[in-house]
């Protein structure tokens, strides 16, 4: 169906269902209970799941399939955000033109950067993309201030022209990004029992786009084009011996993933019409790398999973402060409690970056295949009791790590 076989179609369907029901599924505990802070079912966080899901899906098309590790993908995210906010300022608060422009601009940007960077591979490619991203970041802060508004960040104001819309609302405020009148921050709240479910327009818009981009990425994975990209990862030399030039394929993958990042950036701007240069910083590029790796680079579901886990942990960990920890460990005697609270406080609240760094290391050291690989290994454990695995070492040689060497 829709050009997918049954298994893939079910996967898309499941993703769509999960995205649809996320406000229910992610509200694990009643609103009044002490565990409510672990709920993820509120709009701001769910929007991030969907948006960073798109970002990671796009990154995975490049890194997962071709093995080219880009360390500068945040540049496209930033460019997408800036383009969208400019559309909000000049044209109207309708999100579609903004998203459209963001995808085009980031695609062109990726074309230029990709054309240059893809002449090299391996670490040189990583360093080139890093250099380009840092360059964009520095320029956004300095010379391009008229375009980016420097350190303050680009935002909508009351004096923007907005040719097709109004400069200000009837009440005199700044209009909110909307989809043909449906405001992005509109939320309807259902109260059922102790639970409070929030249905947010912005989230559903982003989630719909995420499902769409996920569908496109499955089609891409299964297409002959996707096969070519895998061939590049497996053995580029052999591919060129068969008379195929890998450059157009990698460039196409780079541009596609850049457009995904631009879309994600535009969506970030739709949810909150503000674009700052810090979105382009290389730590942001590192974040999407770890999302893909944590989920499992090269797998379909991995990046979404990784983005969800990282964003969830970020939100939860940043929220826990020493007061909360004291509450948790209250049942313990003072002697044990204080050191425990001290220890946990290092990793939570302000210490989230430390936790992120540790996750980075632990995943790369122990689980290079990511969560999907972990799930497969656990699955294998159960299956092995039945029949021996049918791994054919001869016909499935390990991919040569050409890109990295």
């Amino acid at each position, binding site marked *: 169906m829709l050009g997918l076989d049954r298994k893939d179609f079910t996967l898309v369907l499941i993703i769509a269902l999960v995205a649809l029901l996320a406000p229910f599924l992610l509200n694990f505990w009643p609103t009044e209970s002490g565990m409510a802070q672990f709920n993820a079912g509120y709009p701001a966080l769910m929007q991030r799941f969907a948006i960073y899901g798109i970002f990671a899906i796009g990154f995975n098309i490049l890194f997962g399939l071709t093995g080219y590790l880009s360390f500068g993908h945040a540049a496209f995210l930033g460019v997408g955000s800036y383009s969208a906010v400019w559309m909000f300022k000049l044209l109207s608060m309708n999100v579609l033109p903004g998203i459209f422009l963001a995808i085009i601009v980031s695609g062109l940007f990726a074309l230029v950067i990709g054309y240059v960077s893809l002449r090299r591979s391996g670490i040189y490619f990583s360093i080139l993309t890093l*250099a380009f991203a*840092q*360059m964009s970041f520095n320029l956004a802060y300095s010379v*391009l201030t008229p375009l980016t508004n420097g350190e303050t960040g680009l935002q909508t104001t009351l004096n923007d022209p907005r040719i097709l819309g109004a400069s200000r609302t009837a009440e005199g405020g700044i209009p909110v990004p909307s989809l043909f009148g449906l405001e992005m921050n509109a939320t309807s709240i259902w109260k059922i029992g102790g639970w409070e479910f929030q249905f947010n327009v912005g989230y559903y818009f982003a989630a719909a786009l995420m499902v769409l981009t996920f569908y496109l990425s499955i089609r891409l994975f299964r297409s002959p084009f996707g096969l070519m990209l895998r061939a590049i990862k497996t053995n580029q030399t052999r591919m060129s011996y068969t008379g195929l030039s890998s450059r157009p394929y990698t460039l196409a993958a780079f541009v596609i993933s850049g457009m995904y990042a631009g879309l994600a950036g535009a969506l970030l701007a739709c949810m909150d019409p503000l674009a700052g240069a810090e979105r382009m910083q290389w730590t942001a590029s590192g974040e999407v790398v770890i999302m893909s790796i944590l989920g499992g680079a090269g797998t379909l579901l991995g990046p979404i999973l990784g983005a969800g886990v990282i964003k969830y942990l970020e939100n939860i960990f940043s929220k826990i402060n020493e007061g909360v920890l004291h509450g948790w460990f209250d049942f313990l005697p003072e002697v044990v409690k204080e050191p425990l609270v001290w220890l946990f406080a290092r990793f939570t609240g302000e210490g989230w970056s430390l936790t992120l*760094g540790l996750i*980075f290391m632990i995943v*790369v050291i122990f689980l*290079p295949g990511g969560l999907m690989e972990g799930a497969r290994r656990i699955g294998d454990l159960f299956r092995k009791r039945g029949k021996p695995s049918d791994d054919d070492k001869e016909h499935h040689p390990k991919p040569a790590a050409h890109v990295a060497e």
Partner: protein
Amino acid sequence: MDAIILQILNGLDKGSAYALIALGLTLIFGTLGVVNFAHGALFMIGAFCAVTLNRLFSLSFEVVDPTKLDFLGNPAKIKTAYVEAWFGQDFGAAIIDWSVPLAILFSIPVMLAIGFAMERGLIKHFYKRPHADQILVTFGLAIVLQEIIKYFYGANPIPTPAPSAFTGSFDFGAMLGFDVGQIIYPYWRMVYFAFSLVVIGAVFAFLRFTTFGMVVRAGMADRETVGLLGINIDRRFTIMFGIAASVAGMAGVMYAPINSPNYHMGMDFLVLSFVVVVVGGMGSLAGAVLAGFLLGILQSFASMNEIKSLLPGIDQIIIYLIAIVILLTRPRGLMGRKGVMED
């Protein structure tokens, strides 16, 4: 002419830092074949060694002196640093004053220990893994080290003064026969430059003239053969990792008075140092040093007002631009050997 000399001088101190970090990166890459994204963090830890020693020396105790009154009329409390109490007023004050240069002695064992621990505990397991994995794991380590420093020292830069003998600047132009006041150069930056030359010279001499260095160079060329000759090359490479770490650490210690250390200074330097390594030629020690100074000087030229008005923003991106041009036209870098890491 004097403006050119001034810019060259201005570029030297940054260039020295780039050169020292890039030298360590190249050493690690050449010996172990590992791309170390945590090298900037080692530089940062070095700078915090200076901060630590400065604080240790400044530790003091308070004595209430009933004969003197402070401005509120209470008995005055007089703070005395322990070192002043132990070694006498003058000598103690001198120790505090000279804490940054003394921190070099302090940083070497610290950085060697950190380097050994890092190599044995983590990097060792990544020799055979793809470079992408090495980049990621050391990137994670850099974040962790950075956060640990942030916990202990806070997020704000900590001013760490140079010895008072080296504060202030001297008129370099007058020495060369230009007008007085044309080329003013701070003493400490001159010291930094001289220091970096000494360290670079020492590393090169160590590799060139000692048996140990010879074995290491042989190992860089062909690790397997050296291993087959019955030499424990892994152990020597571990030591080289420690040396690279302490070179970065010393660079950090001496840099502390130029820029007050903060926890993310390593990251800021790391990206540029990688660019330096690539421009110089991956695996070429001389190339790393040359490119370090070159890029530092070019950067300072690009930040001249005349050039900035011609090409706005060029000072922000010059290094990256050069790296891009070099990578595209001469992939092996300025002094890279043919066929080594060209692809």
